[in-house]
C-alpha cells in the first residue's frame, strides 16, 4: 500500500512538473503575440468598474462606450462581482497581460491596486482612474467628478435658493471623521459667510446609517423649531432625511438638499419633499474618462499639469495639479430632469 502510494505520488509529480515545464516552454512564444496586437490601429480601451451590475457604473460605462465609439476605438468592460480590491486586481492584471492600450478604473482601494496598476503601466498600458482614485503615483490621470469647492458651493447655492437666502439651516453629514464630507463642510462654512442672513445652527452625524440619519433628522427638527433647511452631503443621509420629512408636518416647510442619487430621491422629488439636489453625472464622467484615455494613448497629453485635451461634446479640459482632471460643478437634479437618470 505504501509503495503504491509512493509511486502514484511520484508519477503524478512527474506529470505535474511536465505540465509546468510545458507552460514554461511556451514563454518564448508570447512575444509574437505582443507584436501582432500592437500592429492594429484601433485603440483598445477597457473599463474596469468597482463591480459589475452596479447601475451607477452601468451609466458611466455606457457613456464611455459611446465616447470610445466616437473616436473609433475598441471598448470593453470587465470587472469583479464584488467590489473588493483583490478581485479587481485580477482584472487589471489580465488587461496588462493583453497589452490593452488604456484601462479606465474606479478603484476599490487607494493603495491595494497600485502594484497591479504599476505593472500595467510598465507593460505600456495607460491608466486612467475615475470616480474613485488611487495613490497619484499609480495612475496617469484621475478624472474627478468635481472638486471640493464646486461641491460645497453648489449645495450652499441650492439651499440659499430654496429658503429665500434667510433663516436657520443645519447639516446632516456622514461620520464625524469622513474626509470628503468634512472638506465639503469647511467649504460650505466659508461660502455661508457670503450669505449673512443664513445661520448654520448645528452639524449632526448620521454615520451613513439609514436609521441613525433618520433619527438625527427627527432630533434636529425638534431642537430647532425655526429650522428652514437641511443640507445633507451624503447619499444615505439625504435619503433618510427625505423619508422622515415626507411623513412629517414639516414637509414642504423645511427644505432639504445635498448629494443624492436620482433613484433614491425620485419619489421625494415627485411628492414635493425635495425641490433640488445634486450629484455628478456619471454619464459625463465615463465619457470624459474615455476621452482622457484616448488623449493619453494618442500621445496628445502626458498627464502633466497644464496639458489640454478635447473631450467630444463636453469641450476642452485641462489637467490640474496631481494629474487630476475635474468634470465640473455637480449636476443638479429636479422634477424636470430626474426621470432621465437611472442610477
Amino acid at each position, binding site marked *: 500500500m505504501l509503495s503504491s502510494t509512493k509511486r502514484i505520488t511520484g508519477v503524478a509529480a512527474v506529470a505535474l512538473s*511536465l505540465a509546468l515545464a510545458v*507552460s514554461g516552454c511556451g514563454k518564448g512564444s508570447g512575444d509574437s503575440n505582443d507584436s501582432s496586437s500592437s500592429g492594429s490601429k484601433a485603440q483598445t480601451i477597457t473599463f474596469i468598474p468597482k463591480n459589475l451590475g452596479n447601475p451607477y457604473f452601468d451609466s458611466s460605462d455606457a457613456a464611455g462606450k459611446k465616447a470610445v465609439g466616437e473616436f473609433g476605438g475598441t471598448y470593453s468592460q*470587465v470587472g469583479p*462581482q464584488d467590489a473588493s480590491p*483583490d478581485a479587481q486586481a485580477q482584472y487589471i492584471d489580465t488587461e496588462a*497581460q493583453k497589452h490593452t492600450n488604456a484601462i479606465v478604473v474606479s478603484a476599490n482601494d487607494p493603495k491595494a491596486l497600485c502594484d497591479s496598476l504599476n505593472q500595467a503601466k510598465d507593460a505600456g498600458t495607460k491608466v486612467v482612474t475615475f470616480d474613485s482614485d488611487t495613490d497619484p503615483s499609480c495612475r496617469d490621470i484621475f478624472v474627478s467628478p468635481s472638486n471640493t469647492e464646486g461641491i460645497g458651493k453648489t449645495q450652499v447655492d441650492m439651499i440659499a435658493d430654496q429658503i429665500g437666502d434667510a433663516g436657520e439651516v443645519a447639516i446632516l453629514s456622514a461620520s464625524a471623521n469622513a474626509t470628503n464630507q468634512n472638506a465639503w463642510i469647511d467649504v460650505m462654512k466659508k461660502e455661508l459667510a457670503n450669505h449673512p442672513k443664513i445661520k448654520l445652527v448645528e452639524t449632526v452625524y448620521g454615520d451613513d446609517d439609514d436609521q441613525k440619519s433618520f433619527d438625527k433628522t427627527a432630533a434636529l427638527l425638534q431642537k430647532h423649531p425655526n429650522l428652514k433647511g437641511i443640507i445633507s452631503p451624503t447619499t444615505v443621509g439625504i435619503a433618510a432625511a427625505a423619508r422622515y420629512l415626507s411623513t412629517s408636518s414639516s414637509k414642504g416647510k423645511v427644505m432639504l438638499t445635498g448629494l443624492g442619487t436620482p433613484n433614491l430621491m425620485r419619489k421625494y422629488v415627485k411628492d414635493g419633499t425635495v425641490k433640488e439636489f445634486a450629484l455628478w453625472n456619471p454619464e459625463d464622467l465615463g465619457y470624459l474618462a474615455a476621452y482622457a484615455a484616448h488623449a493619453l494613448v494618442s500621445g496628445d497629453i502626458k498627464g502633466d499639469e497644464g496639458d489640454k485635451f478635447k473631450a467630444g461634446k463636453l469641450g476642452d479640459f485641462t489637467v490640474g495639479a496631481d494629474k487630476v482632471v475635474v468634470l465640473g460643478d455637480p449636476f443638479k437634479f429636479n422634477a424636470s430632469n430626474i426621470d432621465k437618470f437611472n442610477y
Partner: protein
Amino acid sequence: MSRTYPFHAQPLWRRLLVSREAAVIALLVLVLVWAINFVSFFATQLTMTFLFLDIAPILLIALPMTLIIVTGEIDLSVASVVGLSSVTLGTLVDHGTSVPVAAIAALVVGLACGALNGFLVAYVGLPSLAVTIGTLALFRGIAVGVLGTKAVTDFPNRWSDLARQTVGGTGIPLIVVVFAVLAVVFTWLLHFSSFGRGVYDIGLNIEAAHFTGVPVARSKFVLFLFSGVVSALAGIYFTLRFTSSRGDNATGLELQVIAAVLLGGVSIFGGRGKVIGVIAGVLLIGVLSSALRLQGVTVNVINIIIGLLLVASVMSTSVLAWVSDAAARRHNRDRAASSDPQLTPAGVGNQKR
C-alpha cells in the same frame, strides 16, 4: 479462502490511470495545452507570475484543508482567519510595530483561532460544520470590528515587495517556494507518516481508528492548529501582496479552497484523497479562470464553468463508484455461481475506494 479487492486486483498502471488524481492532472494538462496554444497572451511569464500570485493563498490553505476533510471534518473559518490575521498585522504595523513582529503576532492569532476550532471539535466533540460556521462569523466580526471600514495601507515597501518577489528571472513568485516546502511537509505527513495513516483511519471509520489506538482527538486538534497557522500565513501574504489590511480581506475564500480540494479528488465524507490531486485541483481552477479572463469571458460565466466542473467531478466519483460496484457484484455473482457459495461479504471489496 481468498478474498479479492477489485481495486487492487488490477495492475498498478491501470489503477493509476483510473484514479481521480490522474483524471484531474490529465484535465489540467489538457487545459494548459489548450490555453498555451489558443489563448493569446497566456503563454507569457507575466501571466504565470500573476497566476501563481493569485492562487497562492488557495494553494496554501488547501494543504491543511485536505487533511481535515480526509478526517471527515471541515474548516469553514479559514477565510475569516485570513481576514483576522490581516487586520492583526495591519493594526500592529499601524501602531509602529515592525513587520516581522506583527507577522509573528498574526501567526499566533491564527494559532489561537485554530486552537479554538480544534478544542470545540476534537475535545468537546461538536460537529466541525457547525463550529466553523460559528467561528467564520466570529473571526470575521472581530476583524471588521477592529478596523471598521478603514484600511491600513502603509507597509514598508521592503516587505510588500518581498510578497511579490520572483525567484531569479523565472517569474515564479517566492511564495510558491514557501508553498512547495509546505507541500512536501504535508505530503509526507499525510502519505508517509503514521500520523497520516491515522488521518485516513479517522475518515474511514472513526470508532475503528479509536480502538486501534489512533489518537483521534489529538490528531483532529493538531489539524485545526495547522489550518489556523497556515491561514494566518496566507493572510500575511495576502496583506503584503495587496499592501492592504482590511477586515473584509479574502471574504469567501473558504469556498474556493473547498471547491479546489473536492475537485482534486478528496471525498467530502472523508477517508480518501491525495495532496497531489488537490494541488492539481487548485492549479486547474487557477489556469482555467486565468485563461477565460484573457479570453474576455465575464466573471459570471467563469463561475458557471467552474461550478459545472465541480459538480461533474463530484458526480463522476459517484458514477465510478456505482460502475465498479456493479462490476464487483457481477464478479461475485459469477464466482458464487461457479464455485464457492459463501464468499466475500458484500461491500468489503469496495471499502477502500
